């Protein structure tokens, strides 16, 4: 491997330095969610090694939490596949939204696609690092910082298990808060709010109709169809500019 030049090292440092504050809400959120998840794994008799490796290789909050019940139930690999498949369906939308931003980023892109969980997508899509920062490496560092928080939080929870006394009820709201703020930032940029309204209305109706465990797929279908139908309107409203 080529030795890294001084310029490259200082560029990487700068990207990491700028990315770190963006990842701080996730440090709080994943730290505590991870603790809770790790404890849950241990309480169900799964060794901390499972927690550690699943945090690196699966890396997905909701998937891993459902995974606890998959691993403690009767052996049914097809069921495990289908449940995970459905849970991860929303990543298709993240991928489509990030096609442009993740273009031509070289090998690190493979890791960044793997590590694009809800929160990482939200930050990487919406963040606007200063012009002198390499956006690709900025997004890379956001991705890896977030995963490291998840690994550390979960593994700590798994190792310490029930020794931890929780007085942190409600800390998980940090995720909702973050999504609300990112939603507001996106709202300012959008010239038409139709997409945001459609998203809120369709998801809320689907949640009421299909319930908490089954509403994601119907919501996605509804959002996709409604945005397809409003293509003419949205394109006219926003013009042909890039910042639709």
């Amino acid at each position: 491997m080529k030795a890294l030049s001084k310029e490259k090292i200082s560029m990487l440092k700068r990207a990491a330095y700028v990315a770190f504050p963006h990842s701080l809400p996730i440090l709080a959120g994943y730290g505590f969610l991870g603790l809770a998840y790790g404890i849950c794994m241990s309480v169900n008799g799964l060794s901390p090694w499972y927690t550690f490796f699943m945090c690196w290789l699966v890396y997905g909050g909701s998937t891993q939490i459902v995974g606890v019940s998959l691993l403690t139930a009767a052996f049914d690999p097809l069921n495990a596949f289908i449940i995970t498949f459905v849970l991860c369906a929303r990543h298709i939308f993240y991928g489509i939204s990030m096609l442009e931003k993740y273009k031509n980023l070289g090998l690190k892109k493979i890791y960044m696609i793997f590590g694009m969980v809800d929160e990482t997508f939200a930050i990487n899509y919406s963040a606007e690092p200063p012009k002198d920062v390499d956006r690709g490496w900025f997004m890379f560092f956001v991705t890896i910082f977030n995963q490291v928080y998840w690994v550390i939080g979960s593994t700590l929870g798994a190792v310490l298990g029930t020794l931890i006394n929780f007085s942190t009820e409600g800390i998980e709201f940090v995720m909702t808060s973050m999504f609300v703020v990112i939603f507001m930032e996106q709202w300012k940029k959008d010239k038409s709010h139709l997409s945001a309204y459609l998203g809120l209305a369709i998801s809320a109706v689907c949640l009421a109709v299909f319930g908490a465990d089954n509403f994601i797929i119907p919501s996605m279908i509804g959002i996709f169809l409604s945005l397809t139908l409003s293509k003419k309107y949205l394109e006219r409203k926003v013009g042909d500019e890039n910042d639709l």
Partner: protein
Amino acid sequence: MTFNEKLITIGMIILATLIMRFLPFIIFPDNKPTPKFIQYMGKVLPGAVFSLLIIYSLKSVDILSGGHGLPELIAIVITELCHLWKKQMLISICAGTVSYMLLVQFVF
């Protein structure tokens, strides 16, 4: 479940996750122009997706019992007001989270 059965189960979880995450990037690779319709979707989806994420993070709120969703509503309003006022992401997120924790621990 035996050790091997656990490994297979985890393998299936990893496989399904990888497929969903990589699919869009495999269908629409860097070296080919992305179809116009998908480009359009890439631009308009995020607005709706952030809405979906907010609802998703609130999905276990029971409006028929407990706090009836009031602590969530109050904390969201606090987050929004704080963000309109200070325009500092971290401060808004902190204010919302801390007020929610105080609400669920001491009020509701």
